[in-house]
């Protein structure tokens, strides 16, 4: 019952923020203009602006936010570690490297799926590397150190690839891949992202019961009949699909998957399985809000959205580390 109320409240919040997101942009349209533009099939400028510029942006914020929130909650459950998050542990950065290779060296122009497949390959490699480096026992220290290494390597390789890319703009676009942005993406991106994220979400959702059991410890989970190898595979592959697709179209947006599960965990009775769905909704709401903020803050060039999520998330992360210090060796 309480879970249902929480889900409804979060869904309502996503809905309200989505409406606000459709209403905000450099061209003032007014609520009436936005609604008219949304259902206008004549191709008028207002219709083009709402349907082809603001709608994709809003939908992408929801999809990417949900993927990040969900993946964060799932990784925290799998690694038994509250500091796990796709951006912090280097999954996003590795996905960005994969996407950069696919985009700047011509693969993406051969086939539209090449870009997200590149991103997913990067995310998958990072997921596998983390699992191997951090071990199954969930030592916070080992995980964070592994994350630092994976992050640094992926960021260096991305910068190297962009410096070697033939495009005159490539080196300037490092900041997009590191910080992310939802500006001027199109419905084509939304369609591709949704098609690839959906199976990722299903995989992660199918791990919910296993994650609940794992919260009691690996031994207890095994005795409850949970196949740990399969559980592990589901979460890592699901995260690779969801985060790989997200980063391919919007760059690496950090800390959403860290902050959201944390805020919601007390509300679902600390059950990792039950945390998944609210985290997805909460991630969507947080990213919508952040994307509204980057459009409303008056800067000459629009702020990258990852700048904002990092400004919110990094102090949060520090607080978590201070809390975790008591339990660290």
């Amino acid at each position, binding site marked *: 019952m309480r879970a249902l109320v929480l889900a409804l409240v979060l869904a309502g919040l996503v809905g309200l923020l989505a409406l606000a997101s459709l209403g905000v942009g*450099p*061209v003032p349209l007014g609520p009436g203009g936005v609604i008219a533009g949304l259902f206008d099939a004549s*191709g008028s*400028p207002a219709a083009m602006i709402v349907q*082809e510029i603001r709608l994709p942006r809003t939908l992408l914020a929801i999809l990417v936010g949900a993927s990040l929130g969900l993946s964060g909650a799932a990784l925290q459950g799998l690694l038994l570690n509250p500091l796990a998050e796709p951006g912090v542990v280097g999954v996003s950065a590795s996905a960005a490297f994969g996407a950069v290779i696919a985009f*700047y060296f*011509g693969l993406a122009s051969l086939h539209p799926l090449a870009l997200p497949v590149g991103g997913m390959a990067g995310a998958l490699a990072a997921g596998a590397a983390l699992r191997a480096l951090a071990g199954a026992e969930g030592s916070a220290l080992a995980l964070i150190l592994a994350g630092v290494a994976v992050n640094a390597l992926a960021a260096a390789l991305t910068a190297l690839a962009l410096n070697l890319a033939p495009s*005159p703009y490539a080196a300037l*676009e490092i900041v997009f891949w590191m910080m992310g942005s939802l500006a*001027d993406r199109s419905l084509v991106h939304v369609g591709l992202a949704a098609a690839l994220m959906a199976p990722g979400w299903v995989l992660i959702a199918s791990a919910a019961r296993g994650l609940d059991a794992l919260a009691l410890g690996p031994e207890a989970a095994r005795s409850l009949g949970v196949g740990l190898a399969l559980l592990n595979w589901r979460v890592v592959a699901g995260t690779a699909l969801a985060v790989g697709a997200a980063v391919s179209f919007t760059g690496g947006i950090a800390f959403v998957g860290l902050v959201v599960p944390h805020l919601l965990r007390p509300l679902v009775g600390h059950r990792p399985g039950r945390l998944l769905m609210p985290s997805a909704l909460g991630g969507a709401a947080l990213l919508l809000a952040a994307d509204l903020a980057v459009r409303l803050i008056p800067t000459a060039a629009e702020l990258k959205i990852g700048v904002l999520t990092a400004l919110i998330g990094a102090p949060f992360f520090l607080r978590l580390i201070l809390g975790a210090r008591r339990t660290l060796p």
Partner: protein
Amino acid sequence: MTRPGHSGGPRRSGAAILLVALLLAPPAAAAEAPARVVSLNLCADQLVLLLARPGQVAALSHLARDSRLSAYANEAKGFPAVAPAAEEVVRLAPDLVIAGRYSLRPTVELLRRFRIAVLEIDLARSFAELRDQLLAVGRALGRGERAREIADGIDASLARIGPQSPAIAPTAILYHPNGFTMGRGTLADEVLARAGFANLAARLGIEGYGRLSLERLIAAHADVLVTEEESREAPSLASEVLAHPALRKGGRTPIRMALPGALWACASPATVEAVTRLAEARARLSRGAPAP
């Protein structure tokens, strides 16, 4: 005991002699034509390629060979390219260096300390400024006659296109990667005006080189959208916005024209071709015929 100046073997004393030679050489006199000219700036490259005798050019910038930016990229391939670093330039022992006024400040300062004559040029923002620049660089290269010929040629071509003043000028706008456009006081502003277009970016209040969001571009509705020719081999997020469906769909899609960026990255005689092509498109538009 050896004297310090002779202790370093042949290479070092060679460098010392070069340094002494550089320090003793008087600044190039205006009357004498320089024999070794180095250009460090894309727009200066274009002028040097047009004006200098082939034997006069010691090196051009790397960008001179880039056909996306340089109108004379093929011609530039016959000359060495130099990195914009003082050490590289000094090694070439030039008697005249041409650089942009606003870039490479530390390099230019350093070159002056080596007593190398440096001519700084501005970005030409009109055909009148291009004429002045041609004449100034022509004088510096001892090629004043050639400079006047080229400048007169440009004026004649522009006169042939004639003043275009249709009763109602259609609007046009340049839209570059990353959403940059050219407003009032730019070379593109004059090119559009000479072709008989009203520059929409200037009407929207953009001065110089400025940014315009995709939303405002669509809301403003230009009759003609002028983009740079895309290069397929070099994908970038910056140019992705030009492929955005919002620019393709809808009932009032502007006519799109892709012109090579090299035509107006710098003012040069090639810029006249941009005027010609745009004037043709404008004429077709006035007759109600579809544009290319």
